[in-house]
Structures are given as structure tokens and as C-alpha cells.
């Protein structure tokens, strides 16, 4: 069943076809985690009333993403852990820890390749990575950033990193790569704000033609919003400078790596066959109708080694439509419009927080 939903062409399942398949897979995941993870079981019992009847995907419990920072959530014995993914938090901040076994890691890279090959085709292209190799310095545990690059590297060859080991931008490396493949199909990948800083804003000696290139970027808009750059500005700037038009933003989280939501032709984020989003009313967590904003819940059939198949994010989003995207893709599509302010509530005992 899982291989079926992965192998069917992505974005080909309508709601009526997808929902029963995905529900079935998610219920299997739920039962697995309920049996294997005491924490998951406990959360379901206390916070979700130990709900037994689950007629639709929205009946599944959801784990807040921050829980992966405060707790060790996994559904496999320690000896089965292949690697631990961590979120790239700044110093002092708690980081999410995601425990992967072989099965889940393989599922995730397979799933990612199904999505990316849908827009990239199957040929390996010269790959420009707007990042540094240093993100892989630790083999046992590496960040979501590293996992993202590694997952996508299989679609490229002649992998070229434009930041050196000290995360310093090397303009010569960039120019040499663009010179070599000028006007040819290439694959560019990086974090959204780094693409802006090191590709768009780089002062290259010459004008390069990227009209046959494909850019895939991710990581959120927070930093660029501060610089007053939104998605439309971003796209237009890259088109004007390089003729670059094949641009795909994606939304995904470390807790569900592999289940990424790729931008469709209208710039909305599109659910693949094996994942979905549900928008939750912040007052009572009821399901919001399409068009109404709320907290974004993401579900994915992939996570087996840790209870990450149903998560409540801190992002605020809106479902924009289902099965009717202009490029013909089936499935739900949505946009992210903000983030729940993480501001902790302050009280009397907070006059002189130590540095």
C-alpha cells in the first residue's frame, strides 16, 4: 500500500482516491506508534481522550513539533537507530531530535526523489549547492540542512558548493561553475535567504544565462521578509537577472523529512500523494474549511521510527483549493501566511532575566 502510493505518479490522486488510501496508511502508523511509543500512547490518552473511532484523517491525534525538542520520541529500540537528525537551532536553543532507522530513512529518500523527479526529470544535472560541505561534518547526527542537501544530491552530478568549509562565500567557485555550464540545464539548490545573498546578490563579472536551470529552495521567508523580499519579488529578481524561471520553493519540516510540499504553478504549496495538510482552528483545534486560516497540521505516511506521522506546526496557513490547480496537479494546495508568535507570556518573576 505504501509503495503503491509512492509509486503512482505524484499529484495524480484526486481526493476520493487519496483519502481512503492515506487514511489506511496513517491508521497503521497510529497503531504502530501507539504500541511502540509509550509517550505517543500517553499523549493520545490524555490530550486526545484515547479516541478510538477514526473515520477520517482529521481524527488522528497530532503531536506539536516542539515536543521533539523537549522529549525523546521514538518507536524503535535504541539499537535500531541509524542516525539522529537535529534541527539547526542557534546556540542555547533546544534542538529537535529525530530518530531514524534504515526503513524510515530509505522511505524518506525514496519519497523525496518521487517529488523532485516529478519536476526535474530523471537525468542527473550539474548541481550548484548554495551551502557548505561543512554541514556534514558529523556523520552520526547531522542537521536538517545537511539531510536536505544529501537527499537532493542524488539528482545532481559535479556537485559544487559555493561556501567554503568556514561558511565563507567563494565567488570564484560560483563564477567558474556558471561559466562552465552557461546556458545549459543545471540544478541549483539552497536555502531561500542564501540563494538571495549568494546567487542573486553575488557580484559576478559577467551575465549568465540560467533559463534552462531549475532552482529548488526552502527554509522559510523570515529573513527575507525582514529585507522586504517576498516570493513574487524573489522570483522576478531571479528572472530579470538570469532568465531563471524554473523556481520551486518547498515547505517541509525536519520532523517529516521526505514529505515536502512543492510550489505548484500558482505559487501554492502542493501536497504529494503520501502527505496532506489540515488547517486547525486555533480556538478548539476543529478543522477549518478551505479558505479559513489556522494552524497547519501536516500528516505523512512515512515516519515509522518516530511518531511524526501527524504533527501540529507553529505555522499559520490556508488551504487554497483541492484537485483543481491550474497545472493539473491533484491534491490539496495551500499557502503559509505567518507563524504563531512564540513569545512566552511574561510575569512578575521576570524583571531581570540573566543574560
Amino acid at each position, binding site marked *: 500500500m505504501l509503495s503503491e502510493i509512492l509509486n503512482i505518479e505524484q499529484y495524480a490522486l484526486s481526493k476520493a482516491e487519496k483519502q481512503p488510501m492515506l487514511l489506511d496508511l496513517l491508521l497503521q502508523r497510529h497503531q504502530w506508534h501507539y504500541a511502540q511509543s509509550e*509517550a505517543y500512547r*500517553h*499523549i493520545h490518552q*490524555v*490530550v486526545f*481522550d484515547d479516541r478510538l473511532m477514526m473515520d477520517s484523517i482529521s481524527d488522528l491525534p497530532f*503531536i*506539536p513539533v*516542539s*515536543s521533539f525538542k*523537549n*522529549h525523546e520520541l521514538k518507536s524503535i529500540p535504541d539499537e535500531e537507530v541509524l542516525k539522529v537528525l537535529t534541527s539547526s537551532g542557534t546556540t542555547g536553543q533546544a534542538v529537535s531530535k529525530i530518530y531514524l532507522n534504515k526503513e524510515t530513512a530509505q522511505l524518506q529518500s525514496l519519497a523525496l526523489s518521487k517529488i523532485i523527479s516529478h519536476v526535474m526529470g530523471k537525468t542527473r544535472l550539474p548541481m550548484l549547492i548554495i551551502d557548505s560541505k561543512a554541514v556534514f561534518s558529523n556523520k552520526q547526527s547531522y542537521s536538517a540542512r545537511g539531510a536536505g542537501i544529501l537527499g537532493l544530491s542524488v539528482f545532481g552530478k559535479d556537485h559544487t558548493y559555493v561556501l567554503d568549509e568556514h561558511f565563507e562565500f567563494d565567488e570564484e567557485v560560483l563564477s567558474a561553475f556558471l561559466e562552465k555550464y552557461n546556458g545549459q540545464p543545471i540544478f541549483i539548490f539552497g536555502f531561500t535567504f542564501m540563494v538571495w545573498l549568494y546567487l542573486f546578490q553575488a557580484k559576478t563579472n559577467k551575465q549568465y544565462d540560467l533559463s534552462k536551470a531549475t532552482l529548488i529552495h526552502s527554509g522559510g521567508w523570515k529573513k527575507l521578509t525582514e529585507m522586504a523580499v517576498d516570493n513574487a519579488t524573489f522570483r522576478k529578481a531571479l528572472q530579470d537577472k538570469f532568465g531563471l524561471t524554473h523556481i520551486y520553493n518547498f515547505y517541509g519540516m525536519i520532523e517529516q523529512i521526505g514529505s515536502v510540499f512543492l510550489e505548484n504553478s500558482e505559487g501554492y504549496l502542493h501536497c504529494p500523494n503520501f502527505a496532506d495538510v489540515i488547517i*486547525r482552528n*486555533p*480556538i*478548539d*483545534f476543529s478543522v477549518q474549511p478551505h479558505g479559513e486560516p*489556522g*494552524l497547519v497540521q501536516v500528516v505523512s505516511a512515512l515516519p515509522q521510527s518516530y511518531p511524526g506521522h501527524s504533527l*501540529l506546526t*507553529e505555522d*499559520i496557513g490556508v488551504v487554497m483549493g483541492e484537485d483543481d490547480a491550474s497545472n493539473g496537479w491533484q491534491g490539496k494546495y495551500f499557502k503559509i501566511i505567518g507563524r*504563531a*508568535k*512564540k*513569545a*512566552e*507570556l*511574561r*510575569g*512578575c*518573576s*521576570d*524583571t*531581570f*532575566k*540573566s*543574560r
Partner: protein
Amino acid sequence: MNVQLLSPENKTIELQCIPVFNGNEYMVRAFDERTIHFFDTLAKKILAHPGINRLPEMVALAFWIRKANLNSIKEENNYLFKQTHVQLSPLGKIFHVCPANVDTMFVYSLAVSVLMGNKNVLRISERMDAPQIQIVFQLLNELLVQPEFELFQSYINLISYGHNDSISSYLSQKSNARIIWGGDATINTFRDFKPAPRTRDIIFADRVSAAVIDCNYFNGINESDKDFFAKKFFNDAYTFDQKGCSSPQTVYFIGDKIAFDNCLYQLAGRLSEISKGKYETDISSLASLKLNQMVDDTLADIITEKVGDNYSTFALLDKDNIDKNLHSCGGGYFYAKQLLNIGELKEMISVKMQTITYCGLNENQLEALKEMAQGEGIDRIVPIGEALNFHYIWDGYNLLESLSRKVFIK
């Protein structure tokens, strides 16, 4: 060393030059007519401020510093002024370290201190940006330049500075008393800044507060009375995002299981309705914060069940929970526990217990509660709705006494 002076006027100033340090003359006596007039005028200005009715804590503050109330406080404390052989004197210069969020609290302790004739320097957190407090600053400064009140310019100095040990040490050395709001962490920080040997510390440490409701009483009253109590409870809990030391963290429901369920659902539902209209904290953030807290509490085996929505969330305490000082994430996340009788509350009283607000307790139950306060915990027992009402008797101090010096004369 420069600090930002906020009152009597807004300017950057050399620390040694703030007006409090101008001379050692104390011109006003305890409950001086001029002081009372000053605060009464401030009260009138606050109440006349546009939109003030939307800020209930400011209205409460204004009523507290009115002439009538100040005079009755004087009356209540007459015994202090009439002791044989005793003359009350100001203590001197008072250094106040103010809380960052419970905005109006420090104005009360400032008022008491000025009433007793002390000169005051207040450290205001740089993060204190609430509109109500900006109003206080503005009105204070308007008053202090008027000729009749100029005399108070050396009595009320509000300053702000970042984390600067030298400034904090200097002020600690130069003051006769320090009033430290802000809980254990702040107190420990300031204990490192050695005060002069005779400097008195009046500290407001981390506290926890609770509410006690008699379910049969609540279930028995009519709908409008239930609404009335729910509103009172709302004010106690939500005014400072449930982060005031006196705001209830845990609610104890006295009654059998049926009465408890009934009472809990009715209260939770009403609080949610009130919050939808009146509580302005971003609901998406609350939803996120509370779900995280609930998962944490679940995995710590503290709670067993959830009741309510993200505006009013009740987490039912596990019967084996032994933590008497639980603090939630705030914003209307209450721990709830059913008690068969008031006596069972005794086990939950800790040395940190500050305020118990009650609803529907009969005389015997109240007596039992008072009995529980004979020990190390509980500093206040007040009806529901009065949790945040400031009183000059606070955290076990009579601030009027603590902020004055008794001179023995024979």
C-alpha cells in the same frame, strides 16, 4: 555611568546626578497633605485619560491612590502613628526593581513609599512597553513640572538601564532599602550587588496562587450569578496573562465527582466565552503554547485529562501529583483538582503559596482555610475577583511599616 531618566523628565543623565541624590533633606512627613494631594491629582488625571475604561487595572490603580482611600489607609494604621515614645521617620532612599510585565504593581509600592516620606529611584525594565505604563510615565511627568508638585521631583525618579552591574551595585550601596519585585532569579541577582550594611531588603519572591470553588454552591446559583463569578475569575486570571503572582494556577473544586464535572464544564465554557470577547493575546500562540505544555505535563505524569478549549484550558491533575508549586504556561491554562472537602487542601499548601481566592465557601470552610494559614504558607485569602487587588499588606509585609523607621523618644 549614564542612565536613561524617564521621570521627572525624559533625558540621559549621569547616575550620580539623578535628583534623588540631591541632598539629604526630607521635606514631607508620612501622609503629608501635599503627598495625598499629589496622588489624588494623579488619580483624577488617570481617570480622565481617554480610553481608560478599557484598562481595568489602571482604573483600579487610580481608585487606590484617591484621597479617600489614602485617608482610610492612614486611619487603619493610626496605631503606628500613636505609639507612645515612637516617632515615625522616613527610611530614606528606596531603590525599586520593578517587574517587567505586571505593569501597575510597582506604582502601588511607589505610592506607599512616597506616602511614608521616602525618596525613590525605580529601575524600569527596558522591555516594559505596555501602553498603560506609558500613560503613567506621561502623567507623572506632567504633574511633576507643576509648581505645586515640583518638590516631588527628588522623590520620584524612574530610570532605565540595561544589565549593568556597576549601576545596580551603586544604587544598592546608596539606598536605605531595596524593593525587589521579580521573583527568585532577580532576587538572587541582586543579592550579588552588596547593599550597605543597614540597607533593608523587601523582596517579592516567586509565589504560586490558587482558587478554591465550592461546586455545590456554584452549581446552585442562577445563571447570571454564575456569569458574575466567571467574570471575576477571568479578571483574576487573564488580566496579566495568568502570569501575575496572585493569579490562580491551580483551581481546587470542592464536591463529589458529579458536582465537580458539572462545575468544571460550566466554568470552562463561560471563561472561553468571556475570553473570546475580551482577551487579546494571540489565540494561535496560545494554542501552540498550551498544546506544548499539555504534552510536557502528560509526559511528566502530572495530568490525566483535558477539559475546555484553547481559551480556557483545564488540565486535571493526576491524583499522585505531589508538586505543590505548579506553574503553567499561562494564558488560561489551569490545573484542576477535585477535593471532597476543604481539609484536603492542606496537603497542597507550600511555603510559596501566596493568594487563595475563594468562591462559595461557608464560614466553617473559611475558618479551616484561615487555620491553614497558621504556618509557613498562604499570605492572602480573598474572594474571587480580588486576586490582583493591591493591599499595603502584601507577601507578609505591612509596607507602611517596612518603609519607615521607628524613632524611640523619651
